């Protein structure tokens, strides 16, 4: 299937493309060619220049130098609508859906004139069924999970009947089954003669799917290869420029530590007519243990996080921290009891985008670390030197790469900000850590560092609850796996014993017989 672009049938060719921001060369004379009917991977760490490159291909940014050839002819892609008229479609990772508008509205906006909204709604629903990405055209985007939003992006792109589809990290929010469905879709698109530019951090899927790969590092092309002939490790080392550390852990054994975090018979009504509620959730996390929660996006994981972290207060005896009832307490009260929380959305939830790192640190920890961060104890006078020192310590510990001494949170790349937020919470040595999607959209090097930090924290005697849609990550990090479906939770078993198939079935809503282990866990709950 792989065809070399050298034989002249390149659909898109890029020659010497350069983009300069101030003094930073984000792209330094890149060469790239994408053949007709090929799936071409674009690999690189965060900040390697992938987004800059695809933004220029899609017309959202204009190159400083170099040229773009479409079907052999030099073109200047002046705007996204011009790119679309050429036949280039784009599935964005961020920033392109309108939360207060419906699915159909969002799709109509990206189409040219002459489309009635009813027709588009029908086409979108049909297409979404056809490609296994079910959607309701009249749902508001604000009510959709991250994974469902991605479906909207993909369907929107497909409706434009593009010849080249640019996908920016499309599988980072899908279940294995959903991802497999997407691969079927992509293979079908390739067989229809379309080309795909595929950006991903997941080397295994690049190996399985892509015909060719171009690897970027620091804005330059550092290699081109046939990913099927490489190993994941060799691809990773090309991306990072050195070997990626593998996650180290002791052998898994049954954890019998004290229960530090527990949820008992917790229910939560749905927050909006389109979202999901929680239905009699029971679970416990012991000291020294990492419990992973798997599940398709939008099955109640976000609501569970809100319940455990205290963003949504419930009844007093629904949540227990170190044996004490905390269900009705707020986030700071729970933090003061040694808990720490890392939510899914980094910007606007885990950190305030417009505030500096030190301010973000202070916001999260002013109450729980009052003695360390405030002068004279708790009178509210900020001790800047201590806050600065803690920020510096975190950035060094987690290898946060930043452009200035103390930049705004929004100025960091996604991976670096996630490292900072994780570091901010880990720095406290919390006895209970709850984290939602710890490595979403984070590059391989940073992800392995974050996962290692979670394992090390548990090894030091803390309880870690990790919600993730990345099954590889769950198998790598967790001791025990739970699965969420439709607001309920099911025990899948120990990470060493359970199979992916079983988890896949539970994610789809299949019921399992109660095995003895589960019953013994419940006996523990009852004390």
């Amino acid at each position, binding site marked *: 299937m792989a065809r070399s672009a050298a034989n002249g049938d390149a659909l898109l060719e890029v020659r010497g493309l350069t983009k300069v*921001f101030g003094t930073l060369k984000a792209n330094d004379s890149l060469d790239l060619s994408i053949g007709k009917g090929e799936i071409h991977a674009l690999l690189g760490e965060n900040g390697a220049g992938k987004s800059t490159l695809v*933004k220029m291909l899609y*017309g*959202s*940014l204009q190159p400083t130098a170099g040229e773009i050839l479409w079907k052999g002819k030099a073109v200047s892609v002046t*705007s*996204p*609508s*011009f*790119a*679309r008229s050429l036949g280039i479609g784009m599935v*964005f990772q961020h*920033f*392109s*859906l*309108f*939360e*207060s*508008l419906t699915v159909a*509205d969002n799709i*109509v*906006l*990206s189409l040219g*004139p002459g*489309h009635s*909204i009813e027709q588009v709604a029908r086409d979108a629903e049909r297409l979404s069924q056809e490609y296994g990405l079910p959607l309701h055209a009249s749902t*508001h985007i*604000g009510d959709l999970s991250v994974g469902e939003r991605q479906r909207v992006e993909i369907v929107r792109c497909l409706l434009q009947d593009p010849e080249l589809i640019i996908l920016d990290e499309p599988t980072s929010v899908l279940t294995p089954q959903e991802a497999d469905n997407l691969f079927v879709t992509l293979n079908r698109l390739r067989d229809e003669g379309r080309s795909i530019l595929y950006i991903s951090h997941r080397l295994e899927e690049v190996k399985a799917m892509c015909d060719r790969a171009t690897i970027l590092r620091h804005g330059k092309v550092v290699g081109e290869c046939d990913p099927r002939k490489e190993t994941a490790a060799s691809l990773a080392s090309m991306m990072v420029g050195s070997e990626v550390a593998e996650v180290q852990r002791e052998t898994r054994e049954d954890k019998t530590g004290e229960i530090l975090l527990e949820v008992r018979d917790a229910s939560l009504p749905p927050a*909006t*007519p389109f979202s999901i509620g929680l239905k009699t959730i029971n679970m416990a996390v012991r000291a020294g243990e990492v419990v992973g929660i798997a599940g398709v996006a939008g099955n109640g994981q976000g609501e569970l996080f809100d319940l455990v972290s205290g963003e949504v207060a419930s009844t007093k005896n629904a949540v227990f921290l170190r044996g004490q009832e905390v269900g009705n307490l707020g986030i700071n009260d729970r933090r003061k009891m040694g808990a720490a929380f890392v939510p899914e959305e980094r910007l606007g939830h885990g950190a305030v985008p417009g505030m500096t790192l030190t301010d973000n640190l202070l916001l999260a920890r002013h109450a729980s670390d009052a003695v360390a961060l405030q002068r004279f104890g708790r009178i509210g006078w900020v001790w800047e030197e201590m806050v600065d020192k803690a920020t510096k310590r975190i950035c060094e510990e987690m290898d946060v790469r930043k452009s200035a001494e103390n930049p705004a949170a929004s100025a960091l790349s996604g991976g670096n900000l996630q490292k900072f937020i994780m570091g901010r919470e880990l720095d406290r040595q919390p006895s209970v850590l709850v984290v939602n999607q710890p490595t979403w959209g984070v590059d391989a090097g940073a992800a392995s560092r974050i996962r290692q930090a979670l394992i090390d924290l548990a090894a030091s005697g803390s309880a870690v609850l990790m919600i993730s849609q990345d099954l590889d990550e769950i198998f790598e990090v967790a001791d025990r796996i739970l699965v969420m479906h439709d607001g309920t939770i099911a025990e899948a078993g120990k990470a060493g014993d359970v199979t992916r198939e079983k988890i896949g079935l539970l994610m789809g809503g299949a019921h399992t017989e109660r095995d003895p282990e589960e019953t013994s866990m419940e006996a523990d709950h009852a004390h």
Partner: protein
Amino acid sequence: MGMLEAILLTVFTAATPLLIAAMGELVAERSGVLNLGVEGMMIMGAIAGFAFAQMSGNPYIGALGGMAVGALFSLLFAFLALTLVTNQVATGLALTILGLGLSGLWGEAFVGIPGVKLQPVVIPLLSDIPLIGRLFFAQDALFYVSIALVFAVSWFLFKTKAGLTLRSVGDNHHSAHALGINVMRVRYLAVMFGGACAGLAGSHLSLVYTTQWIENMSAGRGWIALALVVFASWRPWRILFGAYLFGAITIMQLHIQALNLGDVEFLPGPIYGILSLLKSIPAQFLSSLPYLATIVVLVLISRNRRLTLINTPAMLGQGFVPDR
């Protein structure tokens, strides 16, 4: 019923400028721009409307002049707040102060001169319907324009692609930009539409409401229009409702303040009782009643948080700076 009809007519006259100005501001805010200069644009429209009508002798040319000057004046705001990305709140306040001063200067020559009145347009047959005929079909042209505006804006915002584009810009300008929508152009046009509406509303004051030029004659109506947009959760039909509610209570409290209880002793007991009760309320409280009642009622009907969230332009007041 003659007296009731006269009272209702004054309600319509009081509500019309609020409605027109609020419709314009609604469109601007739906695109994500908070223009606090409505009061300033309105008073500029009032003096321009008066001046153009004086010079031409034709009140319709006056109304068009008010619109044009309102739109031009809003262009100043657009240049500062959109192109130079100044703070929208401060820029809007500055526009109001500038408008009030500038209109006083321009209007000095017109103080005390009788104006040209915009005569009612009587629609044959329909205006002969008992009770409602005179009210709805024998009004000045601006009344018809104000009602047509509600239909037109509602249709434009929710039934057309251009309206969808405008709402998308107000919901997330980054996404809109990424899709290739010209955020700046949409916002410039929306702000100028708002300016034209505010100018037209101002000309209603000097061509219909009082038919003369008085300094500061907008008397805070621009601010009421602004508040109506927010309290009506950015929905056109609620603005219509709010404007008439405000107009009705304004006129009612004026009549109560002016009422001489001795003149109405012939009324049946309960009605007389209510009137004398209202009469016993201090005048200052009565004067604040329109503001209070409108806010309370609109807040009550906006209790559905989900619906309010969906209708609130998320980018309101935020400047847009495209990627480098």
